[in-house]
């Protein structure tokens, strides 16, 4: 069953001059994670705002958990959780105050709200900070509390708008763990992000959006393959360049490109890490010690530039990916 369906959503601002959404359509299967990937201003937040009943589109339709978003927004609000890119909490109040307040607003009774607040604080490792005002929290703690606030009634569908933007690497990893945990619990999740890596890690399938439209759909692998494979890059001493180049060619099967100035040899490889190990072994046998070696994965920039360059050819059916993509990790 489809938990989220958006059909031809259009939203314009300034009397049509700015098109935030330009016929956006997407579907999310129940219990799966869709990563909505795109640069700033692509329409990610606007999509989430429409689906979470905060914004009325000019045209188009949408259902969330089988409920029409435009006709029955109140019903939709009962089954969704929303956590934004800025932590939407009352900064002057404590973590405890915030969670009990939202609990009451979700119509739990007083003791129910307190019990739920305790559970969530425990679950998100915030028990120690519970009695401190939010303004003393770190960025990561705020996001976790913000997420906790969206989980008070165990939503069927969860929207996370750029949950890790602005977090340091540690905060991001912690957030990923928390989200992984949620996904295992079976929630349907729509997640927006600017980072391919994040979509890759968390999502079952990815929709790339630009200028208010979905321009490509598929699993992370499918999208990357459209861009081209990973590149193996190694840097060696000047005198070893010729020999090392031969070895790289042997593994990759194509003539590597060589930059003599920075002594870097690079070549596309199909099965990234296996190739890397193979090259390392060959280099070791030849007693060549690389100064630097690594796989360069296609970045969002690569994916994006490539996709916006030839939109028509890249649309992949969303069903192809399915659930296995995420389990690959």
């Amino acid at each position, binding site marked *: 069953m489809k938990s989220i369906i958006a059909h031809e959503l259009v939203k314009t601002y300034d009397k049509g001059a700015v098109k935030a959404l330009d016929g956006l359509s997407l579907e999310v299967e129940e219990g799966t994670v869709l990563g909505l990937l795109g640069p700033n201003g692509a329409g990610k937040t606007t999509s989430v705002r429409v689906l*979470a009943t905060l*914004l009325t589109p000019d045209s188009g339709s949408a259902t969330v958990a089988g409920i029409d978003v435009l006709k029955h927004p109140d019903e939709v609000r009962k089954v969704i959780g929303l956590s934004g890119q800025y*932590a*939407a909490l009352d900064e002057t109040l404590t973590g405890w105050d915030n969670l009990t307040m*939202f609990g009451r607003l979700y119509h739990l009774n007083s003791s129910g709200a307190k019990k739920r607040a305790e559970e969530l604080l425990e679950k998100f490792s915030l028990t120690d900070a519970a009695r401190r005002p939010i303004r003393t929290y770190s960025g990561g703690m705020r996001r976790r509390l913000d997420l906790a606030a969206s989980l008070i009634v165990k939503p069927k569908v969860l929207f996370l708008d750029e949950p890790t933007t602005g977090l340091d690497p540690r905060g991001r990893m912690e957030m990923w763990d928390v989200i992984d945990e949620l996904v295992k619990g079976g929630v349907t999740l729509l997640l927006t992000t600017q980072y391919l890596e994040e979509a890759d890690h968390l999502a079952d399938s990815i929709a790339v959006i630009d200028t208010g439209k979905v321009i490509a759909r598929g699993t992370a692998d499918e999208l990357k393959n459209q861009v081209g494979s990973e590149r193996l890059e190694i840097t060696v001493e000047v005198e070893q360049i010729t020999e090392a180049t031969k070895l790289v060619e042997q593994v990759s099967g194509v003539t590597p490109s060589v930059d003599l100035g920075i002594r870097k040899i690079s070549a596309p490889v199909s099965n990234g890490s296996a190739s890397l190990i193979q090259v390392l072994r060959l280099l070791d046998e030849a007693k060549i010690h690389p100064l630097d070696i690594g796989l360069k994965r296609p970045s969002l920039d690569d994916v994006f530039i490539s996709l916006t360059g030839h939109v028509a050819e890249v649309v992949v059916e969303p069903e192809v990916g399915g659930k296995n993509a995420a389990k690959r990790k």
Partner: protein
Amino acid sequence: MLQSVSDFLVITKRQLLQMIRIPEVLIFATIQPAMFVLLFRYVFGGAIDSGVEGGYVQLLMPGIFVQTVAFTLAATAVGLAADMQKGLIDRFRSLPISRSAVVIGRTVGDTLQNVVTLIVMGLVGFLVGWRPSSGPIKIFLGFLFLLAFGYSMSWIGVIIGLSVREERVAQNLVFMTVFPLTFLSNAFAPTTGMPKILQYFAEWNPVSTMVAACRELFGTENVFGATANSWPSQNPILMSLIYMFLLVAIFAPISVRKYVKVSK
């Protein structure tokens, strides 16, 4: 219905909690009007010959009370603009709560803050010689009137807060409009000194009718508003009630509509 009431009470409670969590805000919000009482009492009080028993402070206190509650509009506007800016309004709007809960909760919360402010101001006033002479019932009614006026002004604040969406803009806008309104009135000085056209405005200014009503309820003759025998200055209590009714009747529905439609 019951659910709506409990929703807005939760929002109101949030504001009371804020007062407890950062008491500085309430302290400063109270010091400012108390300071105004002292400044006006000793700066203007010596210069203006009030001609009423007990001196200028008897006329001043109702004026400064009304000015303070008129600024409830500012508290509401700034508070809501800040919530908008932080995305808190978005979160509230994504919750299954009644559409009017957040704005009603806000206006009621700001009114409760006024209770504290008015008590402190009243005490400071008493220390510097304010002696309302109308008896406890009328004095109580006077304060009730002030709270009701603050509450109705608060609804204009809702619209400003949701429209400008930025704390500082809200603050500037409110000060630019409310300050002239409170001075183009009989609050601090007789309107007779004003140019004719301003006198006319001052007669009909809701601040003037409120001040006149409070002077009546606190038992002081309104010698600052006796320039013309206009209807509002003859019937300040009735006129103030009409103004309050109109403010709520017009701005409350607009505010709720605005809240439902508002988008960042």
